[in-house]
């Protein structure tokens, strides 16, 4: 009997954990996109008023955008090593993380245009990509509301069902 109870508890918590993990993916994706939008804003501000080097600018933002810090570190390493930064290099070196393919391509596009033009062209390029990220962010928020809680509940229910079967 004790084995069955332990099995029930394990199945329920495993289901809840899987559901929680799935729902967290939606939350992380939403956070990642919201940080990307904020990064665009802060880069536009820096480029317009201070014009630091790209590396300096991104290094100073590492703590402000924890979800993006890995991507930024990978990108900074590329430019600090003075590699030729084109889309192929970026696709090879930059992690996709929680983003879907479309969002990842936008991120690659954003990193690809950085530092390659004068400030007004640079800012309008970032701004137009920010608009695209905003649309993705809205979708991510809706999906997070819709599926985030749902996956958790489904996980718990699935776990309970498995537990009941065990009992």
């Amino acid at each position, binding site marked *: 009997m004790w084995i069955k109870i332990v099995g029930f508890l394990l199945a329920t918590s495993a289901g809840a954990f899987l559901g929680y993990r799935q729902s967290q993916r939606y939350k992380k994706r939403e956070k990642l996109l919201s940080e990307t939008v904020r990064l665009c804003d802060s880069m536009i501000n820096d480029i317009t008023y201070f*014009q630091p*080097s*790209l590396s300096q600018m991104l290094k100073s933002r590492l703590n402000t955008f924890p979800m993006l810090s890995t991507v930024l570190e990978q990108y900074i390493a590329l*430019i600090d090593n003075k590699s030729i*930064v084109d889309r192929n290099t970026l696709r090879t070196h930059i992690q996709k993380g929680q983003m879907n393919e479309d969002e990842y391509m936008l991120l690659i596009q954003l990193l690809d245009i*950085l*530092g*390659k033009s*004068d*400030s007004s062209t640079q800012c309008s390029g970032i701004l137009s990509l920010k608009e695209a990220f905003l649309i993705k962010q809205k979708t991510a928020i809706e999906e997070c509301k819709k599926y985030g809680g749902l996956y958790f509940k489904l996980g718990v229910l699935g776990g309970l069902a498995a537990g009941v079967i065990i009992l």
Partner: protein
Amino acid sequence: MIDAILPEYLVDILKKKLKYEYVYEIRIRSGLPVCINYGGKYYYLNPEGIGERDGGSIVTDRKMLEAIIYKAADYSMYAVNNQLKHSYITVKGGIRIGICGELVIEEDNIKSVKNFTSLIIRIPHEVIDCALSAYPFIAQDEMYNSLIISPPGGGKTTFLRDLSRLISEGKNILNTLIIDERYEIASCYNGLPQLNVGEFTDVISNCSKRYGFEQGIRAMKPDIIITDELANQSDLEAVMYAAGCGVKIIASVHAYDHLDLRNKPGFEDIIKKRLFERFVVLSNRRGPGTYEGIYDSNFNNMYIP
């Protein structure tokens, strides 16, 4: 430094196959062989060092040219766009890159440069004490408004830089302000002079002479202003303004010699007014920085080598 902007194989040739201290210029043209000014003469660069035209010279393409420029700009073209609009970029170590390409123009203003076609990488060489022979005539006991005259490549900028250093090291403390319109004298990178211009020297970079003279005098209260390449009426007006404020001026100009100066628009008036009290004529007859004479305001030669 050069290692950070050029491809590794070019750096290897320059540093391992040649004596880097004799490399003055590297000229890179899209689709054409790379040339270098090595010890004052031009050669083609090949994998073994330097050679003649048909000696298997290294040829570059536009992609490499762009990569060099991006690297030189620290991947931040927006940060150097103001320099780029004037066809150059200054990088760490005082290296200056002159750039040719297609100008992007919007409403009659230069916005940027695209489709780069060629570039010249100029490696600065500090020649310590190259201005020492002229120093007693210009600044040792008494300061004189001085004009340094030479054709391009005659060593004017190197002379001005060394003179600034000598003035800082002089027995009287004099505050010098360098107006470095094109980052040539102090070669500031991220606001720091990359070359020795002396301890009592302040530098304003990347500004017009008019702005530099007017604001520099108000803000920094200098005893001496040093600037490079007086070229047009606006520059001369800025110099006259500063002279009227009691600041001593040391400037340079492109001309063959002091007599040739009269043929330059605006300079005849300046000579008549005796604004400049010393004229140092340099040439590259025996290498850059060859003294041809130091003249007073009556054009009497004071310098006997």
